[in-house]
């Protein structure tokens, strides 16, 4: 797997030394494609990192001559070691956050059923998302170590505290709902607790609404504050995608759970979410395209998920417009919206991980921005220096 002329002295290797030699560039990129070719040829040897990801893709005609050489096609950076639990957390956490807002809105406007359903959804969501988070740790039994420090430079630390705050208020609001649901005596200790809960209900609802937007938005920072090219470069658009996604997902869930008579505001919330998400996602894609980083969000499994998410978002949005009269339409649109949100989260997480695996997406944009800075006469901030 070299471009050395000495290779001609070696015994032939079943015709895979297909050298492209068009000057220096050709040789350099030839090395890349050779490496990629080698990777492809070696498939089935069980060496995971060798035949992982787009070894073959680097050979695809859609990719013009690579402008750089890589180290045997290996990734330059490492993807986060997160599996499905993290996008699942993003989805469920988004539902929880949106439900928290809906719950407070419902409480303020006296929509009882909506309030109860969304509060219970928020609590269930925050519990499930916490469980996903803990389960994805390499050492789940040490999850409490997150609470030993508050670190503003770490979105995960900040997020843990946001999630904890939200969970605390959700716990109180859920307790009041349970107290209202379960028959209990007016007097005695249970009665005292119920009256206490009634008293803290309003402050807890405000607290829940206060923690909900950060809970919905911080997850975008969580992803962007990494070096995975797609996430890092999406840092301006991703928060809007994610709050939009949280709004439409939580609204979708309430459209499924709550009769249409009480979900008028929820449908408006859903439509605002749909509009925000579609616009933000469009701008995100445009921005990635400018950086030639759009491949991970357009192709492969991630691309397919994001495309389906868009279809479901639009369908769910249209359905929401009509859902005022029919519960069946409301349920169907709600499910479509929730599904769209889940797919968006999975798609974005997978696209980021894909972009971290392939050196093209790390080296390409970095070289381009380096060249741009050099062309503009900025050389003082280069990692590579001479003398």
């Amino acid at each position, binding site marked *: 797997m070299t471009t050395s002329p000495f290779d001609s002295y070696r015994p032939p290797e079943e015709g895979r030394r297909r050298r492209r030699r068009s000057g220096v560039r050709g040789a350099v990129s030839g090395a890349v494609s050779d490496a990629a070719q080698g990777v492809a040829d070696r498939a089935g040897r069980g060496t995971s990192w060798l035949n992982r990801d787009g070894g073959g893709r680097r050979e695809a005609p859609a990719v013009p001559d690579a402008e750089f050489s890589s180290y045997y096609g290996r990734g330059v950076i490492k993807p986060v070691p997160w599996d499905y639990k993290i996008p699942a957390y993003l989805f469920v956490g988004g539902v929880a956050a949106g439900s928290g807002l809906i719950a407070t809105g419902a409480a303020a406007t006296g929509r009882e059923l909506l309030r109860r359903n969304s509060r219970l959804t928020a609590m269930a969501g925050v519990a499930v998302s916490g469980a996903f988070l803990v389960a994805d740790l390499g050492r789940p039994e040490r999850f409490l170590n997150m609470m030993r*420090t508050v670190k503003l430079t770490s979105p995960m630390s900040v997020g843990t505290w946001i999630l904890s705050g939200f969970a605390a208020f959700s716990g109180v609001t859920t307790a009041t709902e349970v107290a209202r649901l379960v028959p209990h005596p007016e007097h005695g200790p249970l009665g005292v607790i119920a009256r206490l809960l009634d008293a803290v209900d309003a402050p807890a609802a405000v607290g829940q609404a206060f923690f909900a937007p950060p809970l919905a938005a911080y997850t975008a920072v969580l992803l962007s504050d990494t070096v995975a090219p797609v996430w890092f470069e999406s840092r301006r658009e991703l928060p*809007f995608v994610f709050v939009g996604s949280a709004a439409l997902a939580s609204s979708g869930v309430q459209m499924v759970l709550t009769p249409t008579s009480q979900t008028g505001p929820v449908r408006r919330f859903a439509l605002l979410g749909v509009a925000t998400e579609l616009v933000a996602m469009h701008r995100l894609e445009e921005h990635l395209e400018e950086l030639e980083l759009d491949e991970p969000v357009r192709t492969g499994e991630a691309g397919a998920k994001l495309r389906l998410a868009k279809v479901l978002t639009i369908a769910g949005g249209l359905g929401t417009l009509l859902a005022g009269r029919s519960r069946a339409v409301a349920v169907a649109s709600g499910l479509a919206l929730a599904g769209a949100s889940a797919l968006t989260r999975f798609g974005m997480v997978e696209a980021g991980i894909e972009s971290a695996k392939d050196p093209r997406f790390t080296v390409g944009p970095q070289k381009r921005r380096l060249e741009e800075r050099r062309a503009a006469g900025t050389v003082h901030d280069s990692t*590579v220096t001479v003398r």
Partner: protein
Amino acid sequence: MGYLARQLGGRTDPAPDAGWEEPPSRKGFFTDTSICIGCKACEVACKEWNALPLDGLELSGNSYDNTGGLGASTWRHVAFVEQSQDRIEAARESGRRLVDLGMPSVGAPSAAPGGSLPDRAGSPQEGAGGGQNLPKNGMPAGYGTLPAPPEDHGPSLGDLLTEKDAVENGAHGTTVDGTPMVGPLPEFRWLMASDVCKHCTHAGCLDVCPTGALFRSEHGTVVVQADICNGCGYCVGACPFGVIERRTDSAASVRADGHVPNVGVAQKCTLCYDRLQHDQRPACAQTCPTTSIRFGEREEMVAAARERVVQLHEQGFTEARLYGANEDDGVGGTGSVFLLLDEPEVYGLPPDPVCATSKLAEMFRMAGWAGTGLLAAAAAAFLGGRR
């Protein structure tokens, strides 16, 4: 710069920033890849000293590199690249371009050993045509040497005269200082480079760690406390160099009791924190037989690196360049400085690494807007309906 601003980007001394009072001087490596012989003694010494488990035993087919790359159980990694003449030429061209761009010099202005340097902007000036132009220090520059004097079966007089003529007429090109080269480019070369954690001034891994498991030592290095880390894996995605990794249970023990320590926990080079505490050199630097890995105060390392790159340029190795020595780069300079003989990506290093947290303020600002928008949307959805 203020204390807070210093935390995320720009020039700074990391140990005092992390709260160390009167810390010892910052330590670092200077890895001179031009004298590395690829013996992998550093890899072995690191494995041995730190009792790292086995992380696979496979032949990769990538030259002599069967290690692959840095990882949870590989804290030093020797890269091997085989290059043919055209790639050497490309490397040399890119090196000359860096010089022509007027890349910043690091530290004090250069006082080259051979006397004052001629203007380096115009490449093949003086020396090109002038027959008598001998190098400043009386040494011939460049690859190869003049053929040995004809004893027994030495080269023919004709060859000698042709070669002499070629050298005197600058047929082999000139160094960046305009000294004619004495020999043609070799047809082939090895690049060997021992890679390691960069111990960044602004370390993404450390910034994002939510548990505080990663910390800045008094020597300015970045170390994981394995008993604190809960394996969230965030640091893995935040390292611009793909260094740190979470250890999986596929690692095989090298101990008699079959135990693999720290599974599920992030691991990387500690810059031999334990040895530094006892005024010992890191195991890898201690063992390196060629002094390719030098250890010491970072400032001294950068000075040594600068001297070396000047020396190599004088000898005609125009492709020599430094990596990580510039404190104005995206990570505020690295503790481990490298001398490379080609573009960084050839060795699997990112050409323009940026610590993601340097953009954290922007990310939180966007998330703040998005969150505010979400709150406003919820309010509009509920209040809008009441009217």
